[in-house]
């Protein structure tokens, strides 16, 4: 449903069916709503068969990269001479994204069930759910659900009477966006700085504690029980456009719309309908200026581009952007694009882990130039400099944080150049005094 709003008939409510329904939070309530059937089913199958179903469903990673989930699971070594781990990435920190928060707040058992199935499929006795430190309420809800799952024998040494050992723990983050990067998250669990690691080795070979590890996003894992219950064919058939994108997607819509919130739609849903129909369109008297459709790390779309964009992996690429995490940030015509791009750059400068030179120095330098422009002291050379720095911050570092900082700068300058020019020429009053 379009939590916190009523569900719209155009939505396809699967993961969000019980958003806002406090009864779904308890173990009994979850079982009443059909919970833990999928886990029971999975535990009666061969682990490979579970992976195969997920493969056939076409489920792709919902955290941002869109990597096929079943394929990722199949990379895990089949021998079990070493411990295997599952990490659930609940470090939801991509600006514009707030879907995992609602999954954990309202349907904690859905996530536990998805994790348990994933653990069983990859042969991991332990799963760590890494929840960002700021999510105090989701942590409380998840912990209560975990306690209940243990108390009811879902987890533990004999999960659902299967004889399998499945343990699950919450690991609380402490304020670091970069821990959403999979190897940074593993370092963070290990008690280290959240530094992304150089790859190879990839997590399936040497991940958490040096052991074979799979890491999946909350939304991805929460979709798995539905796939087990209703079949791979059902899921792969959920597609309004590209066959390569299947299932439903939770879209977090924020910024300048009348009804911000989470909306669950079938893959291939038009962005235009999402904004104007489901979200009620722009605030009174405002018109659409720009949209960032997949969290702050993806290219900004102009109004025209946004209104033609199809929300699935391929549709977003065709529109010159990416589906990313599905965090849709909407800007109306009152928004100062230069200022918002500076804000986004500041976010990345604040969150850079400090390892790679281009990122550590480049993100901070980018902010200073943008601030200088906003203070009315910029020049046209600054524009060239920003683009050149962005070029050197792209594709040259361990992880993509640096690239993510460059993305709004480049797409912002390319598509909203007149707003930069206005500050530089003095046509627009400076909004900052420093810089």
């Amino acid at each position: 449903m379009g939590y916190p709003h009523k569900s719209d008939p155009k939505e396809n409510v699967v993961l969000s069916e019980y958003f806002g329904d406090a009864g779904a939070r308890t173990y009994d309530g979850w079982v009443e709503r059909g919970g833990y059937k999928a886990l029971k089913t999975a535990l009666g199958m061969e682990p490979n068969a579970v992976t195969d179903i997920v493969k056939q469903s076409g489920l792709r990673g919902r955290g941002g990269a869109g990597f096929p989930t079943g394929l990722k699971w199949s990379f895990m070594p089949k021998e079990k001479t070493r411990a295997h781990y599952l990490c659930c990435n609940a470090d939801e920190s991509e600006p514009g994204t707030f879907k995992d928060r609602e999954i954990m707040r309202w349907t904690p058992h859905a996530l536990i069930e998805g994790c348990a199935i994933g653990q069983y499929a990859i042969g991991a006795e332990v799963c760590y759910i890494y929840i960002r430190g700021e999510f105090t309420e989701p942590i409380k809800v998840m912990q209560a659900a975990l306690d209940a799952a243990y108390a009811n024998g879902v987890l533990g040494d004999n999960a659902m009477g299967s004889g399998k050992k499945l343990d699950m723990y919450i690991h609380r983050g402490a304020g670091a966006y970069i821990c959403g990067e999979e190897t940074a998250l593993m370092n963070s669990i290990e008690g280290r700085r959240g530094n992304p690691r150089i790859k190879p080795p990839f997590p399936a070979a040497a991940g958490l504690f040096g052991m074979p590890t799979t890491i999946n996003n909350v939304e991805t894992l929460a979709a798995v029980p539905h796939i087990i219950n209703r079949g791979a064919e059902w899921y792969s058939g959920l597609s309004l456009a590209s066959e390569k994108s299947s299932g439903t997607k939770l879209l977090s819509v924020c910024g300048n719309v009348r009804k911000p919130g989470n909306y669950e739609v079938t893959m291939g849903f038009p962005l235009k309908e999402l904004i104007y129909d489901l979200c009620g369109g722009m605030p009174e008297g405002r018109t659409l200026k720009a949209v960032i459709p997949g969290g702050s790390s993806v290219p900004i779309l102009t109004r025209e581009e946004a209104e033609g964009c199809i929300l699935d992996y391929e549709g977003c690429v065709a529109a010159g952007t990416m589906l990313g995490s599905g965090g849709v940030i909407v800007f109306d015509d009152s928004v100062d694009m230069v200022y918002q791009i500076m804000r986004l750059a500041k976010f990345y400068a604040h969150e850079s882990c400090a390892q790679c030179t281009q990122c550590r120095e480049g993100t901070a330098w980018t902010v200073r130039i943008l601030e200088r422009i906003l203070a009315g002291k910029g020049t046209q050379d600054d524009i060239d400099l920003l683009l050149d720095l962005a070029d050197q911050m792209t594709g040259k570092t361990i992880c993509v944080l640096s690239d993510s900082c460059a993305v709004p700068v480049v797409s912002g300058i390319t598509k909203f150049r007149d707003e930069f020019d206005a500050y530089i020429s003095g046509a627009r009053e400076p909004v900052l005094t420093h810089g």
Partner: protein
Amino acid sequence: MSEELVKLTIEGVEVSVPRGTTVIEAAKEAGINIPHYCYHKGLPIAGVCRMCLVQIEGAPKLQISCATEVAEGQVVRVFGEEESKARSSVLEFLLINHPLDCPICDQSGECELQDFTFDERQGQSRYNDFPKRYDPAEQFGDDVMFVANRCILCTRCVRFMDHAAEEPVLNVSERGDRAFIGMHPDAELNHPWAGNVVDLCPVGSLISKDFLHKARVWELDHTDSICTGCSQGCNIHIDTREELVVRLRPRANEDVNKFFMCDEGRSNYRWLNSGDRIEAPLVAEGGSLVASGWDHALARVAQIVKGSTGDAVVLASGKSSNESLFFLRELFGEFDLKAHFRNFTVDGELPLSGVEGLALREERIPNGTGARQLGYDDSFNGVSNASIFLILGDDLEGITPEMLSGAKNFIYVGTTLPEAARNADVVLPATTVAEEDGTYVNRDNRVQRFSQARTAPGMGRPAWWAFAEVLKELGRGDAVDTAAEAFDAMASNVGAFNGMSYSTLGKNGQKLAESSAGVSK
């Protein structure tokens, strides 16, 4: 050893290297030094400075050559437009907050930030009008100072303390461009091997207080030598400025000390500059020592040797070269010789625990192994009823004049004149390890060369030269003019050294034959 070789092309040069080699190492085989900061062969790979980006044909983006393994048929480009631009850009990023205080920086002249900036012709910064980051300098330990402003966060120092010293007292604190190398306030960087962070630091951020503002590095001469601090035999550079030893630094030798040396060895150089030296041969005349020329003094020694028979006792410093020890033995070849060397031991090793086979050893002399191989033992406890007693070297600590009084003739060869040696019949001015060429044998039987770094004061000469001259005087040998001749003479006479030659020892030394039987009779 059968290693699988992989063939690749780097900047048009075809090289074959063992599988598992990184591109940055393979490039060295092709004669190309790919610029880098965080990479260091002696440390785990971090891959963070992004300076060593190269183009690998078929790869979608530039790759760091320090963390990329070679592959068959790989084609690597180092100096193409894209990767050169990337490197220039990394330099520009590194320099935006760098103070450019090169005129007062100790690292100036041996700074990798300077050097690569020069190489890349990086003359301008576009970081206009913004203030640079500023943090005050800190004391990290008794000798190590941290100048935060110059730091480029390559983390070599942190990795050294984590993985080599295994005493993680350094960290990266904070994040983003606020990050810095930090410590906990209650800790100190005083590990016995901590000084290596100064060498590892590619810029002037970690500096030695001992060397602070002592010299501009381009004024220094660098000489290959061997540390005399213990039996490990770490390879070092002696850095001299106008005949003064101002610094010792480790010299890489994978077989001995990798890239490191301990702080005790590093700080043990002041004695090499001692002003209290014997500058001329001295001969006893009328109850006192009188300065003389070499000819007269050597003739006097020859006369003593020729006029004596029976027991001879020699006591040599543990710092004596193999060459001097060998010719000393030769000199007394016709005597019943008791040959001793002075040993110093300290209980407990101080290892660099993360590096196999490297420690400040209990035996605190550099050539105990050489001495033993040449028939010397360390059981000296005095002289009685000897016809000749000869001391080589200055380590007379704990030796009383009474212990030396039991010989008819007493010859002293050394660099300074201790009280106990003032009743010698002849005193010959010798040279220190820094003033002569020669060899030591370390605890692992590795024979290693050291070279002359400064001129001996006055008339000082290597002891092997003096002994060979006496042998010539006695008609038992030819003049020996170089350490190479001295070594080769020893190699053909002493079983353990058989087959070796001074020239083939090279920079890294050679192990004694496994079956070495010691001194030949």
